[in-house]
């Protein structure tokens, strides 16, 4: 597999959120607006890139039995960096995302990629894999955030395009579940259609 394919698989074919259904907690919780989704996506992407790079670099030094705790500490270190940087430079976003920034540590996408990819591949492929997965995650969150914001308050990225209040439900928790469900169904349908086309 070349690097371009390696990068692209994270976006649609193996999208971590929409196909593998990992990292659902932040996906549902922070997507009440497109901007929050984008912020969360970028923070997780940074952690994913750095942790994949470091874990691929140290994989031969780590004893097999204690690898998971070591991976978690590497991830937690980068999460702390993101947390402090965001608190300093984007305090408003940091406040909105709140508890979900430290919780990037237990985001299963990151540990999943460390275990499934970075621990078995060289540094360059791991960084590319991290970038692809990160972009896939960010895209999914931003699109879901945009859809919920558009339906719920008639705006995208804070830019109002409809007068009035919109359907409040979509900004509230139930709307997150329901929008996410239809998004997964749509991506499944798209993937199936593409697979059927490829076969013919």
């Amino acid at each position, binding site marked *: 597999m070349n690097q371009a394919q390696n990068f692209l698989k994270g976006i649609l074919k193996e999208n971590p959120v929409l196909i593998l*259904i*990992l990292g*659902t*907690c*932040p996906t*549902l*919780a922070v997507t009440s607006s497109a901007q929050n989704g984008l912020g969360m996506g970028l923070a997780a992407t940074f952690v994913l890139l750095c942790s994949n790079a470091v874990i691929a670099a140290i994989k031969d030094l780590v004893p097999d039995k204690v690898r*998971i*705790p070591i991976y*978690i*500490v590497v991830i*937690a*270190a980068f*999460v*702390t960096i993101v*947390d*402090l940087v965001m608190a300093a430079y984007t305090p408003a976003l940091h406040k909105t995302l709140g*508890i979900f920034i*430290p*919780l990037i*540590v*237990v*985001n*299963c996408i990151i*540990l999943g990629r460390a275990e499934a990819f970075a621990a078995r591949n060289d540094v360059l492929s791991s960084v590319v894999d991290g970038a692809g997965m990160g972009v896939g995650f960010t895209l999914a969150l931003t699109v879901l955030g945009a859809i919920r914001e558009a339906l719920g308050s008639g705006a995208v990225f804070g830019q109002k395009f409809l007068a009035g209040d919109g359907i409040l*439900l979509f900004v*509230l*928790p*139930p*709307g*997150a*579940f*329901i929008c*996410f*469900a*239809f998004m*997964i*169904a749509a991506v*499944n*349908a798209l993937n199936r259609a593409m697979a059927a086309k490829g076969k013919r």
Partner: protein
Amino acid sequence: MEYVLIIISAVFVNNIVLTRFLGICPFLGVSNKFSNAFGMSGGVLFVMTLATVVTYLINQYVLAPLGLGFLQTVIYILVIAALVQMVEIVLKKVSPALYRALGVYLPLITTNCTILGVAILVIQNNMNLAESIVFAIANGLGFSFALVLFAGLREQMALSDIPEGLKGAPIALITAGLLSMAFMGFAGIVK
């Protein structure tokens, strides 16, 4: 009275799964059978209470006095991972029956964000030790309540005719959405 309010708020009004969105992975993952849901609930309730007490004490007596607050995330996740491992070893020795019931769920609990989430929420909300314990138990109960309700719904759903495109994760999420909507009816009971 204060404690009663904490419990009602954590179980119904701000349910950890349905309104705070923590622990969605096990919520979707182990809810296809009633018995699995019970096992997972028990494990989470137990580990959550223990982890909250331990991390609270570490924060109060080690991290806060030494000004090491920035290490919170790293230390907490390590403590939780070690604790889960320890609970597993102790249970295996002390109560094989309980170990058989909870054993397979314990490793999954380390990466369950409810545990770390509650440990951090307790510190953020400046709770004291007694409040923290009540808060942890109440959130464990809230998680169990949502999970068991959801498992019951999904067992029924296994028999129904679902449109092709919505099978699997989508229909589970829509059900969770409806359940979450039902829980919104509790909003306003506690401020």
